[in-house]
């Protein structure tokens, strides 16, 4: 008997003030392809995103391979399955390279296959080393869909693939190839859930559910014309911190977002000139650590960057965290405090440098968490998170008080 990979148990999901799904149940087993159909607003994408643990549940629970991964009490656990996900938005940043994004997606499964045959089939082989930002809409969509399929092709275990309108913007030939790959995944024992209005994609499914009426129809899909022949190699998963660090260095976002404000702070303080002589200890530490503190107060550039094409949602679903810069703020804080220590006292002050690094690290990530807390809002950029940053000034003042004793 086929193993259930996904179980939706009596869920209720709200969007805005509307209850979109109420007491909804379904089971998806290994080797099944489920097409979610229904009119606009019926709740197809809501159901798919709830299955990816991206939406909170008012009632019920979601199980992946019999493990509760989300429930109505707000508990959220990592999925034990290899999860392939293509949301309606592409879930990737313009600064990622095509092959790099596919490698990142595959690394989540712990295995990797050569992506070139897949890119070739989608007429994208020559774009493997291009930035995602340089692709057309249709090409970017193909990469996003491949990022959902390849982890399953690479995986040794049955996985769950969630596709939201995968054929949007694709040409006829690419849709046929996509149908062939979905059929191959079915034969390999993976479970696939697809939200679609496209009849060509719907024919790949073994079951159709009309989300608005909950009516289920069993169908016989086409068999694959060829057998999947992929040779996967074990790889290490790329963490959100490694990804964030990589993006920071590629885009130099830290320079624009944090370091400029910090260097301006240092410049303004240095312009006090003679006033800097004869400062009390607390004031001197305040001046010395101000650039590191300013760098931290500017927060995490990756929060804004990862809102592009819902990259943050994709990472939260497949890697359980948003991309962030990891230890970069620690290094930057140490460097900036070294610079300010050389500027103010023409000496290297190891204690201040370490404290400066920790100060930037803690401030940076606290501001990041404050920003990430608004990610669920309809208009996260419209809220005034900056109003909450003074929360950190009091600890800063108390730290200076402590250092000066």
């Amino acid at each position: 008997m086929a193993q259930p990979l996904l179980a939706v148990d009596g869920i209720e999901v709200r969007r805005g003030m509307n209850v979109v799904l109420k007491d909804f149940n379904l089971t998806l087993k290994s080797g099944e392809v489920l097409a979610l159909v229904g009119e606009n607003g019926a709740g197809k994408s809501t159901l798919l995103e709830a299955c990816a643990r991206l939406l909170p549940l008012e009632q019920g629970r979601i199980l992946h391979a019999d493990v509760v991964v989300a429930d109505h009490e707000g508990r959220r656990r990592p999925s034990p399955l290899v999860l392939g996900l293509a949301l309606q938005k592409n879930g990737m940043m313009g600064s990622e390279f095509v092959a790099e994004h596919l490698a990142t997606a595959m690394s989540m499964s712990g295995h990797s296959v050569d992506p070139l045959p897949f890119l070739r089939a989608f007429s994208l082989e020559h774009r493997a080393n291009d930035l995602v930002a340089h692709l057309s809409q249709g090409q970017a969509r193909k990469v996003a869909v491949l990022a959902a399929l390849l982890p399953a092709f690479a995986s040794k275990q049955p996985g769950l693939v969630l596709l939201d309108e995968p054929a949007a913007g694709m040409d006829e030939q690419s849709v046929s190839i996509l149908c062939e790959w979905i059929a191959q995944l079915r034969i390999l024992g993976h479970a696939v859930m697809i939200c679609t209005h496209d009849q060509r994609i719907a024919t790949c499914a073994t079951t159709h559910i009309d989300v608005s009426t909950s009516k289920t129809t069993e169908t016989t899909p086409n068999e694959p014309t060829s057998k999947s022949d992929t040779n996967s190699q074990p790889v290490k998963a790329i963490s959100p911190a490694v990804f964030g660090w990589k993006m920071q260095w590629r885009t130099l976002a830290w320079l624009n977002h944090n370091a400029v404000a910090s260097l301006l702070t240092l410049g303004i303080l240095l312009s006090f000139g003679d006033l800097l002589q004869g400062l009390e200890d607390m004031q001197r530490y305040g001046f010395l650590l101000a650039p590191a503190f300013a760098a931290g107060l500017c927060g995490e550039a990756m929060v804004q960057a990862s809102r592009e094409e819902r990259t943050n949602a994709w990472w939260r679903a497949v890697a359980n965290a948003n991309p962030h810069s990891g230890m970069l703020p620690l290094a930057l804080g140490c460097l900036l405090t070294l610079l300010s220590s050389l500027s103010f006292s023409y000496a290297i002050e190891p204690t201040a440098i370490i404290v400066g690094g920790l100060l930037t690290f803690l401030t940076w990530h606290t501001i990041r968490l404050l920003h990430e807390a608004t990610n669920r809002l309809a208009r996260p950029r419209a809220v005034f998170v900056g109003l909450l940053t003074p929360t950190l000034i009091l600890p800063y003042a108390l730290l200076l008080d402590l250092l000066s004793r």
Partner: protein
Amino acid sequence: MKQKVGEGLLFFGFVGIASTLLLALLWAPSVSIDAFESPAAQRIFYWHVPAAWAAFIAFGALFIGSLGWLFKRSELMWRLHTAGAEAGLATGLMTVWSGCVWGAAEWGTPWDWTDVRLNTFGLLTLLAIYLVLGRASQPDGVETRDTFAAFGLYGFVLVPITYVATRIWSIRHPGPVVGTGDEGSINGDMGLVLLLGAISFTVFIIGHMMNSMHVTSLEQRLERLQATMDKVI
């Protein structure tokens, strides 16, 4: 009926606050010139302390409303959250502004970044601004309510810290004068004016929150009617 009660409380609160101000400026005894740098500015105390008391009531309502929304999904509790944030903003600004004026006269500086009570109270007020402006910027929905209710809970952590701050970190701010259990330095007449201020601000803030909850309920009713019209048209 509730609306009339709310408006009545608001009116009596205003009258009481105005009376407190008059008594504080014209009748309350002067303090010793040895005890204060600026004895005349000490009269701000009759506004500052009751306003802070009312702010704590408002932030308490915000906390209960946030909890009620997150755990019970209660519309009434969401209205209480909204009312608590708006009332907290009003009374928080009254407290911080009057404190700055008094601080400038008494300490020689309107703000001290190392004074824990001052800063935590300032943060509570900023949080109230954040909640009020944030709610205005978002469409109503569970996402908006969950996010702001979570921030409301975060803010309430600051309330006990603010109250006990001067007991733990006594730097510049005077210690608590209400609820300490000892005689303190407040004499009978001073205590009377302070009590009138505290009662007036309490009545005012309750009236303010009742009115605010009524306005939010009208907003919600309007949204429901608009949604019905969307379906009909």
